[in-house]
């Protein structure tokens, strides 16, 4: 199963996004990387690294970030990590996490989920 990592400046937000995904995809391999080691706001290189490793398998890991340094710090983790099939996805955090976990639990592969997430930002909430 493809693993998912949620990177946020807020420890609570990362955990809550995962709580929300468990409503529809409780079995997903998903890990939070929110806030700094002491719980304050920010993004931690080590937390991101640990989260990726905790859900990593040959099926790969997709990473969703909130903004700014979450993106840059994740980028650096990926550059230093010698692993295949680990990538960031540019999509809204909450909707993306829900879509990704349902797809992962449903057995879809890395590339398929990646493509599906790319469209999440364009889907409408109000018609």
């Amino acid at each position, binding site marked *: 199963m493809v693993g998912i990592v949620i990177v946020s400046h807020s420890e609570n937000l990362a955990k809550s996004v995962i709580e929300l995904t468990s409503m529809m995809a409780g079995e997903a391999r998903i890990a939070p990387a929110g806030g700094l080691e002491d719980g304050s706001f920010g993004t*931690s290189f080590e937390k991101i690294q640990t989260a990726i490793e905790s859900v990593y398998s040959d099926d790969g890991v997709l990473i969703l970030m909130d903004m700014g*340094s979450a993106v840059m710090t994740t*980028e650096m983790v990926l550059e230093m990590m010698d692993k295949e099939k680990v990538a960031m996805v540019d999509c809204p955090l909450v909707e993306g996490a829900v879509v990704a976990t349902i797809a992962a639990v449903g057995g879809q592969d890395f590339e398929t989920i990646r493509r599906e997430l790319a469209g999440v930002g364009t889907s409408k909430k109000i018609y």
Partner: protein
Amino acid sequence: MADRKKVIEIIRAIGVRMEECKDELTQLDQPIGDSDHGINMARGFHAVNQKLEQLADQDIGAMIKSVGMTLVSTVGGASGPLYGSAYMKAGMTLAGKTEMNQADFLEMMRAATEAVMQRGKAVAGEATMLDAMLPALKAMEAAAAAGKTTKEMLADGVTAAWAGTEHTKDLIATKGRASYVGERGLGHQDPGATSFSYMLAVIAEAYC
């Protein structure tokens, strides 16, 4: 010009300056960012300082690269990956060296500036630290080309960095957290440009 001992002394002095200007940097970050730049930089350099002793017998390149790695893992905000990449790429240009001269310094600064541009996907005029780094680099290149001493070159760089920092007040941020504030950010000085200017000032004071 600068040997290993000097480089360690400068890194330590940067840490002291970051601690001294912690509140100022954080206050600058308040209206346009997330009020953490000073805290983040002080935390990062505090961690750097704790590792400095272990670096004493390494070459200058390895020392500076190690500063970058520590900043990436301890700063916690956007300045972590930005300054982290800058120091790491800067260190790479000095691999194996135990002394650095004027040309080495310029090459290091070019690498650092390019690293920030690449990591932040930013260019000049977006109200970021680059608006201090780019003019400083240009001024120092011009000074070196004109045959000025390293001390004079650094003084020119510091003057240009502060002028560039001042100019960020007139710019609308299009990158980073400040871009969410948009036009309301006008009149505010960029915290990243400010911390860079302080850093270069410390180097200029110590380097001879």
